[in-house]
């Protein structure tokens, strides 16, 4: 067998893909940073708002990719963390605590605790059972939100004002929130990249590919997976805290299972296990939604088959497709 040869080819290809990804993500970030300036030509507030929303979901999809693409933990309850982050902001703001640092600390702490407890229990299961147990926990949180009548229950809760940063109303302008979100997105991306490249990340991937071997050489995958799950949950909570600010509103709808499903779809759409893919996937997903919905009321009849086509004809999502286009021209 020419296993060694294939291995080298695969590595070269992988390296090539990684290089392409780097380019793509830098281009994306630069384009995003310039977007508000370009937007001046059009309905600025709306464009900035839309792109802010796209970036927020990009953060959430990125956090999902960390556990999905590298730890093979398919969470069908990731929206719960978005909800936790959003509610931390909403509840604190309704009590007059508007400082984003405090709100974010509460959001991250809540997400960490929830992720730790549910993760510790969920990781006892594998595969589809893991998918469903994460769903179960997020549904519990969803119904808890619905029954939270002090904070609007099902109707949700309006924020009296956007968060302040050290007393400054940085988020009150759409641009301020935009750049803060962009900074968070870049920060999260760099963090994820560092995690993936670290020893921790290698163990995580090893645990996915060969848990028996990892255990044999003395690593307990369980602990690594749990830590990754907690980090991922906290990152999604950050997205939730930003989402609460972007919409000025918090509701249990942020935690519904449909929302978790959409997050999965965004991540797969972009390309699992690439970090860059989910960022682009989430943004493309929302941009397509917005564009198609403007064309026809029955836009889902176009959007649905489009997703099917991505799966059938573009293995590995957008990133897979991009790599293949590049590869073909190479060959």
């Amino acid at each position, binding site marked *: 067998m020419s296993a060694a040869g294939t291995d080298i080819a695969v590595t070269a290809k992988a390296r090539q893909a990684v290089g392409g990804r780097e380019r793509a993500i830098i281009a994306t970030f630069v384009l995003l940073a310039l977007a508000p300036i370009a937007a001046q030509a059009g309905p600025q507030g709306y464009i900035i708002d839309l792109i802010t929303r796209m970036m927020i979901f990009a953060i959430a999809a990125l956090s999902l990719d960390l556990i999905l693409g590298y730890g093979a933990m398919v969470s069908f309850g990731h929206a719960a963390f978005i909800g936790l982050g959003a509610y931390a902001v909403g509840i604190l703001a309704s009590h007059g605590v508007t400082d984003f640092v405090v709100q974010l600390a509460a959001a991250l702490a809540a997400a960490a605790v929830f992720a730790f407890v549910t993760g510790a229990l969920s990781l006892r299961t594998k595969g*589809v059972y893991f998918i*469903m147990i994460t769903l179960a926990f997020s*549904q519990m949180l969803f119904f808890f939100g619905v029954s939270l009548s002090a904070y609007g229950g099902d109707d949700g809760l309006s924020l009296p004002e956007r968060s302040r940063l050290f007393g400054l109303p940085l988020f009150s302008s759409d641009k301020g929130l935009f750049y803060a979100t962009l900074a968070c997105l870049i920060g999260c991306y760099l963090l994820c990249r560092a995690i993936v490249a670290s020893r921790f990340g290698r163990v995580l991937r090893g645990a996915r590919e060969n848990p028996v071997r990892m255990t044999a050489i003395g690593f307990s995958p369980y602990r690594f997976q749990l830590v990754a799950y907690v980090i991922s949950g906290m990152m999604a909570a950050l997205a939730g805290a930003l989402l609460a600010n972007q919409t000025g509103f918090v509701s249990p709808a942020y935690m519904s299972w449909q929302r978790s499903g959409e997050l999965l779809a965004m991540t797969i759409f972009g390309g699992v296990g690439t970090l860059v893919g989910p960022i682009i996937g989430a943004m493309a997903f929302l941009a397509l939604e917005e564009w198609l919905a403007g064309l026809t009321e029955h836009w889902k*009849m176009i959007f*649905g*088959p489009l*997703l*099917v086509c991505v799966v059938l004809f573009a293995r590995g999502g957008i990133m897979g497709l991009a790599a293949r286009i590049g590869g073909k021209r190479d060959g």
Partner: protein
Amino acid sequence: MSLTLFLVQTLNGLQFGILLFLIAAGLTLVFGVMDFINLAHGVQYMVGAYLAAWFTALTGDFFLGLLLALPTALLFGLLLEWLVFRHLYGRDHLDQVLATFGVILFLNEAVKVAWGSSPLSVPIPDAFSGSVRMMDGLLYPVWRLVVIGSGFAIAIGLALLVSRTRLGMLVRAGAVNAPMVSALGVDIGRLFMIVFGFGAMLAGFAGAMVAPILSVEPGMGDNILILAFVVIVIGGIGSIRGAFAAALLVGLVDTLGRSFGPQMLRLMLDPSAASQTGRALAPMLIYILMAAVLIVRPAGLFPAQR
């Protein structure tokens, strides 16, 4: 709480369970045999209900409508299989999730375009429109008995089919080791097609049977899909027996918890706290049940032998 009411509620719980089983049966079969996550099972159930409503309205007879709806649902399932699903066997679960999610979006909108967004109505067939008296002031529609009966029939039929027939043997073998079955000269693609078509027909049958009791509307399959997944996961994926037991368990826990939970809590807490807690807990019950089962038995109650 009277004993009669308790018995009636237990029966209600069981019949809700059967209803769930009817919907979950096709899902667990496709999932277990083909290792295929079919999120579109819920919309196939919806399509079945719509077809039944449509054909019933056209022919003026429910059974004629059902007779036409079943093969149509089967054909529809095979069409979907040919167009989409057969390209996804052996692919990553995630690819299946995304593709079937796309199918959901399309079909939920398509039924709206075809039949309008208002819910449709299917009357109970005349032959079964009677009812039996359950307790003072409460009637039990005969149609529900028919639904329960068909649920049992499907449970027994499926169990026999899987354990006693050659097809069932191939299905079981295919589930354990598809390449081996294929090497032995069985057309595995055709086998999967048959199983998928059968699953689609089961989903359609469930939709048609509940149409006289429930509202036929776009999106009706979405929430039921989650419940069906809960059932098959608690039961252990691929196990008909497990799905049956889990469906009854879920039905009982949900119904009894909803009916008697608040009273139980009132024994422990003051009334307002009890009603508050009861309201928060009731909808979570089945998810708590699922989490608890999976924590104790990570592969469900009746894990399929592999």
